[in-house]
């Protein structure tokens, strides 16, 4: 029977990339000279599982490289090699390379063999030079001799025994969790010649057999002086999923079956399955068959059910393998489907409530009470489903330690990165789109914000600059702050540059906020020298645009000499929006609450007409244009006189206008539906939603509305 291993590839890649992330995080925590064993172990485990997985799937290039890397890590783990920054650098680059190799393999692209070979050689070179142990050697024997690359587990005097008897009883879930006992046995056989007996007495009758359950057990005699830790590390993956018994034995006088494992031909004999499975812990009866390693699971016979598990065992799930874990992997489409259905339920429920409202009588009262209850449950359900889409922001934050380290080194700046609130959760879609803007901001903070150590010392500041990323929830929003304790924004310089570029007229005086907002103008840069880090003026405008697209806001605070802070306010999710319903004639529009500044009733004396169709009104010290929504959207309004309706002051990109509507209705959370699914995007509309009565209401996109208004107004301005 054949099984397409490819179906497990995606899982392997996803988990490997995650594992590499955690490896990188651990590497960055490793400070020079001090080898925190826990961290080294984490790094080692990652390399080990990726090696195993790629070997299982036949990604031999990845496996070969990782194997060498693992050997180097093993030296660190056993304290034979001191951690220094050059070594961490190499390991970081190795992590990058592994990621590249995996990505290339995933995309079925050719690997950059030259790059792999050169880093491979570099690692070999490191291993060829003796490492210096700074840690007290764990045993007298672990001298500073470099281990041979391909034989990490060679015997060492003193600790060596003549051999080991191993009783390996896999748990029933071992295969299902993606482990292949055969691979373990093969790996064991590379340590020393092995004599392996399969113990098949727990195989139930065919009728009761579950092909995904592992019912085989093995007794293994390792005939060679191998370290206990070496054997244990072979079984690292299945730790907790099997019963493992190790027992040393004396000089192996009669090493009868000493053969290299993989070269042997097939030939399997099983013990007769006993009808009632005996408890795993019970001592096994002497096995009747001596079986060479490799063929044990590859019995060619089709009727032999025990052969099936081997095939289905290929999914390498190293990280998830240990323990049951508390999570499952679900595709985002499934969650979105669920979310959609819940959205429909919410609408249906509100239709029901509206239908029940006019009913009278005792039963009607009960019905309404039940509906109120239903509504409460619906909200809870909706919230739970939304939460499924939420991920902690550290998914994004995790990339920054590396970025700050690399960039700091490159620019000769000393920077400490502080991350707070990294467990703050937000919607996956928001999370995906916030990454790049944050990278821009952090790069900017490093390049323009933080000064060089000399400048900092001269200014009486510590040589180490601090960049802080902080995330927290505030009133239905997520706030992410990027702050630095650098030189701050230079207001005069920005203003001068803006005048030079004609963004600001010669003598115009601007508020602090508006000056800082100038740096979001496309192509704006005050950098004297364009570096490859920043200064080309591309970036801040993209940052702002991305965040606005997410329905968020950016604010800048800066104090000269003390530093700057960029504060980003984001909606928790993109699927639901807090909206204010507004009526124009018979149409109801949803205005995103985030865009609304205030709503006022106009007084005649505050309005003045510039031209026939352009009107402005005075709001305190500002003059705002009036946008008549009915005019812009071509609908029949109830009121055309400004005094009869209401003016909603809305803001986008720092521009404020008064939106004239007939009346305001309720505020509610609406589920955003795309217009593009069956139609096309319309400028000025962010989408549509269903109202309680089942009708469609359009959601306004305020930046689009203002843009549309301005594009209409232009000719009038020219004339005036």
């Amino acid at each position, binding site marked *: 029977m054949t099984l397409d291993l490819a179906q497990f590839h995606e899982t392997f890649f996803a988990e490997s990339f995650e594992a590499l992330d955690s490896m990188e995080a651990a590497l960055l925590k490793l400070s020079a000279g001090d080898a925190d064993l826990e961290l080294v172990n984490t790094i080692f485990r990652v390399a080990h599982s990726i090696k195993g997985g790629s070997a299982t799937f036949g990604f031999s290039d990845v496996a070969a490289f990782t194997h060498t890397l693992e050997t180097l890590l093993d030296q660190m783990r056993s304290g034979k090699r001191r951690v220094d920054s050059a070594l961490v650098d190499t390991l970081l680059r190795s992590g990058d390379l592994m990621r590249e190799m995996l990505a290339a393999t995933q995309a079925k692209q050719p690997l950059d063999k030259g790059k792999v070979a050169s880093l491979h050689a570099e690692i070999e070179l490191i291993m060829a030079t003796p490492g210096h142990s700074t840690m007290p050697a764990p045993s007298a024997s672990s001298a500073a001799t470099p281990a041979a690359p391909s034989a990490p587990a060679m015997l060492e005097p003193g600790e060596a025994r003549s051999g080991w008897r191993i009783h390996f009883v896999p748990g029933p879930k071992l295969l299902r969790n993606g482990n292949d006992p055969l691979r373990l046995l093969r790996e064991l056989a590379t340590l020393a010649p092995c004599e392996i007996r399969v113990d098949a007495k727990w195989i139930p009758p065919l009728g009761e057999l579950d092909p995904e359950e592992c019912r085989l057990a093995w007794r293994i005699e390792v005939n060679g002086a191998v370290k206990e830790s070496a054997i244990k590390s072979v079984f690292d993956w299945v730790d907790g999923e099997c019963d493992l018994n190790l027992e040393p034995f004396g000089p192996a006088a009669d090493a009868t079956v000493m053969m290299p494992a993989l070269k042997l031909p097939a030939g399997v004999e099983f013990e007769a399955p006993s009808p009632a499975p005996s408890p795993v812990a019970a001592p096994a009866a002497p096995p009747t068959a001596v079986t060479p390693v490799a063929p044990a699971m590859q019995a060619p016979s089709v009727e032999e059910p025990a052969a099936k598990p081997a095939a289905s065992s290929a999914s390498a799930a190293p990280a998830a393998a240990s323990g049951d874990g508390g999570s499952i992997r679900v595709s985002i489409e499934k969650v979105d489907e669920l979310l*959609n259905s819940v*959205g*429909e339920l919410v*609408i249906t429920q509100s239709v029901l409530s509206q239908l029940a409202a006019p009913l009278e009588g005792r039963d009607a009262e009960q019905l309404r009470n039940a509906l109120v209850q239903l509504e409460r449950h619906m909200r809870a359900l909706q919230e739970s489903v939304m939460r499924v889409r939420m991920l902690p922001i550290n998914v994004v934050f995790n990339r920054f330690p590396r970025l700050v380290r690399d960039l700091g080194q490159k620019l000769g700046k000393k920077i400490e990165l502080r991350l707070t609130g990294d467990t703050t959760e937000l919607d996956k879609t928001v999370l995906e789109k916030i990454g790049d803007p944050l990278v821009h901001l952090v790069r900017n903070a490093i390049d323009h914000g933080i000064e060089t150590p000399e400048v900092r010392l001269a200014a009486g500041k510590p040589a180490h600059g601090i960049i802080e990323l902080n995330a927290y929830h505030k009133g239905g929003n997520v706030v992410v702050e990027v702050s630095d304790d650098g030189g701050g924004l230079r207001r005069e310089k920005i203003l001068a540059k803006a005048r030079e570029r004609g963004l600001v007229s010669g003598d115009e005086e601007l508020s602090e906020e508006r000056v800082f907002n100038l740096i979001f103008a496309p192509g704006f840069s005050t950098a004297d020298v364009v570096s490859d880090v920043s200064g080309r003026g591309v970036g801040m405008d993209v940052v702002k645009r991305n965040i606005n697209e997410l329905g968020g806001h950016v604010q800048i605070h800066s104090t000269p000499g003390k530093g700057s802070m960029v504060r980003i306010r984001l909606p928790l999710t993109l699927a639901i929006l807090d909206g204010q319903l507004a009526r124009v004639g018979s*149409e109801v529009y949803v205005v995103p609450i985030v865009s609304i500044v205030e709503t006022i009733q106009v007084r005649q004396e505050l309005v003045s007409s510039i031209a026939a169709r352009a009107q402005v009104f005075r709001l305190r010290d500002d003059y705002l244009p009036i946008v008549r929504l009915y005019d*812009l*959207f*071509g*609908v029949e309004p109830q009121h055309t006189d400004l005094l009869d309706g209401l003016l909603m002051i809305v803001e986008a990109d720092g521009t404020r206008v008064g939106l004239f509507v007939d009346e305001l209705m309720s505020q509610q959370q609406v589920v955003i*539906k*795309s*217009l*593009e*699914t*069956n*139609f*096309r*995007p*319309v*400028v*000025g*509309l962010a*989408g*549509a939603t*269903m109202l309680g009565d*089942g*009708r*469609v*209401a*359009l959601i306004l996109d305020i930046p689009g509305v203002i843009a549309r208004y301005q594009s209409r107004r232009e000719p009038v301005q020219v004339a005036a």
Partner: protein
Amino acid sequence: MSGASYVKDYEAADSRQFLTFKLAGEEYGVGILAVKEIRGWSAVTAVPHSPPWMLGVINLRGVVVPVIDLRLKFNFERAEYNDLTVVIVISVGDQLAGIVVDGVSDVITLASADIKPPPSLGGHTNTSHIIGFGTVDDRMRILVDVERLLAGTEMSAANAMQ
């Protein structure tokens, strides 16, 4: 099961089935496989800045679906929408759209040989969205290619860009 055998018949007999509908005194047909459902008229929400024949959008079980008045699209006079007005929801590619017609008549089966290509009507009349004419029981139907019909209507994002 009936669906499967239907498809088989459909292909084996080299014939096509059409849902026919009335519009300004003429009878038209659309390929039945494109028809998702037939529903009565319900109020639409107008979408600003769309052509006059694009009436607006409706809520089809939680999906926003645009509705087109085929009379206006074909340059006929606008008709009153009443209880008899019918919206045929059709699917084109992965998009849905509703077309407003005067009434639904019948389902007819036409052998491919019986479908005659549209004659050239000169430069005044665009026939690109007409598959051909088919006659059943001495009544001629104009067979409409919905895909072409909607493709030329700025319905999709791709068209909006042009």
